[in-house]
């Protein structure tokens, strides 16, 4: 076992990326202001000094060009890691991602080992263009893998797995976790396996299935819920989903709250709810409940944003309701 040190979620992403770049010369970074400025959130701070401008590219404000270039580089055998300054901006690079990167293996048998890092999520008055959780877009695009770590340990392990995977991987890093979440992280390279959920807390009365920043909301909300024993399942990977882990938990607790920060319709939580309804119907002791944002843009106004994004009290209320059902 390697030595560990307590670092932030942001530092964990940075460390994971740096160690992969040190270990594998085919790994390189590209994005807006990631070089000289070290990235809008400083994930790649110091990278250009260590690896040089050949492996840490400052690109124009042209997401379609970033993703398109990455696809070409990946097909040629490199392992590009693209940073979108905000997840919201991936919309500009959408065609290259969902029509080209996602389908190259299907069409031509080509590996596309690229990663697109998406700083996502709200909670800091970023407004409608800087706060979105666009993960569901990618679940509609077969050929992409999607990960969303909630802890520093998984942030580092999943960036490594994403880089080493032969498929295009969307890496959702929640901006609210960057400096708020710290954890003991092993030094040196390690992988967090793709497609494996993590039991954030074991329980027997109810399961909260969630991922990303909402894992922390779930843990806080259910820490002391009138003695109820609440299990919290951190999905970690959204595509492919760890269906086994979800069903195992549901079969134990028989009650499920699906918690996600994204908007309600057709979200990851909706997919989880469908799987539960289809495959664990006879294990259910109550309706599958979604706690998520309503189908509205994320407001800039702090009180409105709080009203839109799921809060600790919303989760408490939903869990209480379902426990009492």
């Amino acid at each position, binding site marked *: 076992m390697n030595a560990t040190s307590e670092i932030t979620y942001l530092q964990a992403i940075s460390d994971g990326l740096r160690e992969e770049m040190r270990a594998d010369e085919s790994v390189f970074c590209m994005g807006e202001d990631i070089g000289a400025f070290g990235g809008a959130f400083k994930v790649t701070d110091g990278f250009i000094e260590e690896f040089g401008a050949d492996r840490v590219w400052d690109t124009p404000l042209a997401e379609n060009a970033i993703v398109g270039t990455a696809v070409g580089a990946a097909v040629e055998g490199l392992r590009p890691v693209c940073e979108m300054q905000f997840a919201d901006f991936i919309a500009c690079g959408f065609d290259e991602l969902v029509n080209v990167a996602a389908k190259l293996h299907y069409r031509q048998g080509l590996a596309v080992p690229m990663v697109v890092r998406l700083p996502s999520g709200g909670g800091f008055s970023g407004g409608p263009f800087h706060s979105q959780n666009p993960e569901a877009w990618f679940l509609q695009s077969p050929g992409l893998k999607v990960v969303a770590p909630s802890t520093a340990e998984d942030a580092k392990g999943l960036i490594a797995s994403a880089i080493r995977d032969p498929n295009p991987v969307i890496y959702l890093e929640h901006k609210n976790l960057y400096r708020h979440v710290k954890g003991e992280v092993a030094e040196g390279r390690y992988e967090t396996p793709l497609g494996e959920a993590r039991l954030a807390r074991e329980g027997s*009365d109810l399961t909260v299935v969630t991922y990303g920043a909402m894992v922390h909301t779930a843990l806080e909300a259910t820490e002391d819920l009138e003695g109820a024993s609440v299990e919290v399942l951190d999905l970690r990977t959204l595509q492919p989903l760890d269906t086994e882990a979800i069903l195992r938990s549901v079969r134990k607790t*028989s009650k499920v709250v699906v918690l996600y920060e994204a908007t309600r319709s057709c979200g990851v939580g909706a997919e989880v709810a469908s799987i539960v309804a289809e495959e664990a*119907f*006879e*294990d259910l*002791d*109550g309706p599958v409940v979604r706690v998520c944002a309503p189908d509205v843009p994320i407001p800039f106004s702090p009180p409105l944003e709080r009203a839109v994004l799921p809060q600790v009290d919303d989760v408490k209320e939903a869990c209480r309701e379902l426990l*009492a*059902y």
Partner: protein
Amino acid sequence: MPQMGVSVAEGTIVEWRKRPGDWVEADEPIVQIDTDKVETEIPSPASGRVKEILVEVGTTVDVGTLLATIDTGATPGEAHADEHVDAAGQADVADAEAKPPPVSPVVRRIADEHGVDLGRVQGSGRRGRVTKKDLLAFLENGAPKLHSESPYVEDQAPAAGGQELSIMRKRIADHMVHSLQTAAHCTTMVEADMSRIEAARGRLSYLPFVARAVIAALREYPMLNATLEGDRLTVHEDVHLGIAVSLGEDGLIVPVVHNAHELSHEGLAARVKDLAERARDRRLEPDEVAGGTFTITNPGRYGALLATPIINQPQVAILDLEAVVKRPVVVTDEHGNDSIAIRPMTYLCMSWDHRALDGALAAQFLSAVRRNIEEWRS
């Protein structure tokens, strides 16, 4: 029209409890029928949606006549439009509120698996819904299966009030029911003249003398000094004698006099006294209530004459020592002359397991005990 008893040939519809389109659960009353013997509710033979009612109220039909059809392929919840609307066209709100809400899939499944009538389970969920937790707790606490043997007799609800059995009583209950369900109980009785023991016992009770007589007989008939576990019978050489000790209202415990065959009646008396005292003070060690090979129970001092004791599993027999009472008995002297005398007599009642032995052996053994008692020499 179901066959309700051998001699019933026809029945009259008194009342339909369901209308076409209503959902009916299996065993739920569906129709009230009058025969020349009895008026009774008929339970539905299946779950489903009532499709058609073929015999109107007041009509008398022969046994075997089709009364109604039930669509068993239907699903609950798809009520017909006016299911909850009464004859006057008013929504039956009170009725809807009184009905417990539908159960969840997991509760339905577990109830089906265990044959639980959910009407007996107290629901703690919203509007009294039976939750999975409620059902599991119900099963955990040994759900009483109260289904009546007769489909025409309603199940009885558990009596209100009362109090839960103590842990000791529950344990005794478990052991006794288990024994009755396990062993083929049979009780044999002999009468014994206690004159010699009466003369010899002084301030001691009868028990150590009878115990001594039993131990000697067990050495003679070791098949009674045995344990039967499943298909495996173990015949013991050493006698570890269990003595039932009453703890008053709390219950009963059976400490064991280990290697009782090595003790005289005085030694037995001392050991039984010590064990009984410590039993009443709750100071027995676990080993002191384990390993018995034969048990004597002694309620005779309370005046009972006969009893059919329950075997202390896995032993194969238990001897019940009843009251010693003076009776006129026929005695025969050495010349063969009969006369009537007053003697302290008792009945030795022994329950034995017919799986392990047969009546002849039980009688031979009891006769040996009687002989040892009647020919007592200290």
